[in-house]
């Protein structure tokens, strides 16, 4: 029982709205875990609570057995980084500056150079556009930048909130292939998706979140064929 990331009993509310009502999750070293659920299930709330972006009423998180700090910048320093929902790239800054700010928390900036090469290797389209303003990138490129920026912190766990949002199927496939490569390099991934099929195909294990509570949990392969999941989340998705 020594998971890399262990989240226990998260409760988050916005005023009277209870967005998370006791959600727990664990992630092993080198594992890809996904959380699926429909609109408003509380997926982003969960990610933001892990990152210290929203306060939680109850619950604790541990990284490598050590309690995760409360404030975002400390969470990033301890080894988690998030590519947030809606990408949230810094539009008036260049691609290069977006990647540089991703490495802000690192003690040694020297390692950042090597990682930037790595990001360019994963997403060559970013390399061709280093001097371009991030706001002028296409949606897919912006998502690549958001992921690259999160990788620049050299996280032990990369958190991704709906990386497929608003992208064409081909672009989604490209990005998910690169995520598999990132994982092969030793980065554990926690992925949140509405696109359940893609998430189930990429991840090792999946948690299904429904209105702030765990509905189901298991190996992604099993859930892909689960009749309940199929009818509720995989209805009219495109073929893999």
């Amino acid at each position, binding site marked *: 029982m020594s998971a890399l990331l262990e989240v226990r009993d998260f409760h988050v509310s916005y005023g009277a709205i209870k967005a998370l009502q006791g959600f727990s999750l664990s992630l092993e070293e080198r594992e890809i875990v996904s959380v699926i659920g429909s609109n408003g299930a509380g997926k982003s709330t969960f990610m933001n609570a892990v990152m210290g972006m929203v306060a939680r009423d109850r619950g604790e998180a541990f990284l490598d057995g050590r309690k995760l700090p409360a404030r975002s910048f400390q969470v990033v320093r301890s080894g988690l980084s998030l590519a947030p929902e809606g990408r949230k790239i810094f539009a008036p800054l260049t691609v290069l500056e977006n990647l540089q*700010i991703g490495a*802000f928390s690192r003690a040694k900036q020297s390692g950042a150079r090597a990682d930037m090469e790595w990001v360019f290797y994963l997403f060559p389209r970013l390399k061709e556009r280093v001097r371009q303003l991030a706001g002028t990138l296409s949606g897919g490129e912006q998502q690549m930048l958001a992921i690259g920026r999160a990788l620049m912190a050299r996280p032990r766990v990369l958190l991704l909130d709906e990386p497929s949002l608003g992208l064409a199927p081909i672009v989604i496939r490209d990005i998910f292939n690169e995520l598999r490569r990132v994982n092969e390099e030793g980065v554990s991934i926690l992925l949140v998706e509405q696109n359940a099929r893609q998430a189930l195909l990429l991840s090792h294990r999946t948690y299904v979140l429904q209105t702030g509570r765990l509905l189901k949990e298991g190996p992604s392969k099993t859930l892909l064929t689960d009749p309940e999941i199929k009818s509720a989340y995989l209805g009219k998705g495109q073929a893999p």
Partner: protein
Amino acid sequence: MGNAAQFTEFSTLFQQVVNGLSLGSVYALIAVGYSLVYSILSFSNFAHGGFLVVGGYICYGLFTGFELNVFSRHLLTVPAGSVWLAGLGALGGAGIVAVLTERLAYKPIRERTSMTLYLLIASMGVSIIIENIFVIAVGGRFRALPQSMFPSGLYNLGWGVTASSSDVLSLTCAVLFLGGLQFFLTQTRWGLAIRAAACDLRTAGLMGVNVSLLIAIVFFAAGLLAAVGGVFLSYRYTLYPQMGGITTKAFVAAVIGGLGSLPGAIVGSLILGLAEMLTTGYVSSQMRDLVVYSLLVLMLLVKPAGFFGKPVSDKI
């Protein structure tokens, strides 16, 4: 005859341009800090004028050996007459007051609500508090920094145009400090973080930036720059507790240039300085403010976002 008349006309114009740039550079120092705070927290910090008053009085106090108050003369014995000590004390002191203002008045509000209107109202309160602290502590009378503080003299720029050494000094300082700010923002790690935070403060936190510290740095810089302006204003004009009122001009300059944009704040300030001095030279000095505010209204009608601003709906 025609030549002589043209010559005088030209030198009057040029003289007013020199004066306008000098005044504009002081506005720029004030407007840039104000704009910097706006770009991060999206509210007009009306206490900004207070920072420049703080800077002015600290400079006066340190330079004259605390002639401000009978009591303090016995409490504090500072070697009077050091321009460097007075200047550094003023800049650092105003920076610290700015940071404290943020910590004590704005931070508790920011943590409770995301409505920037409350910050705006709090800043008006702080502005009045700072003003009154000085009225009570040192009295409301007008003072001026001793003319011995900076070297005096006139530089002849040719064609009968002159610039006083304080003009030259304030322009040089403005260029140095604004250049320093530009360097800080574009060449350093924290500068990059501030530019990112100006775009999206929350997301900057996700990058591992300590947002509280970032905001403190921004307020310190804003207070420091305001104090530079404050020192020059109290040297060339007068020092009094309500001196911060001149910040309205810097607000106008920032709005004309585009709120939240630093190049905008500088361009707006120079335009405003020039407009004021040209009006003084060619129309009358009483028309100055009329021209300034007409420019503001015109700008808001024609190009509400200012020259460099992003089109945001709610401003000020």
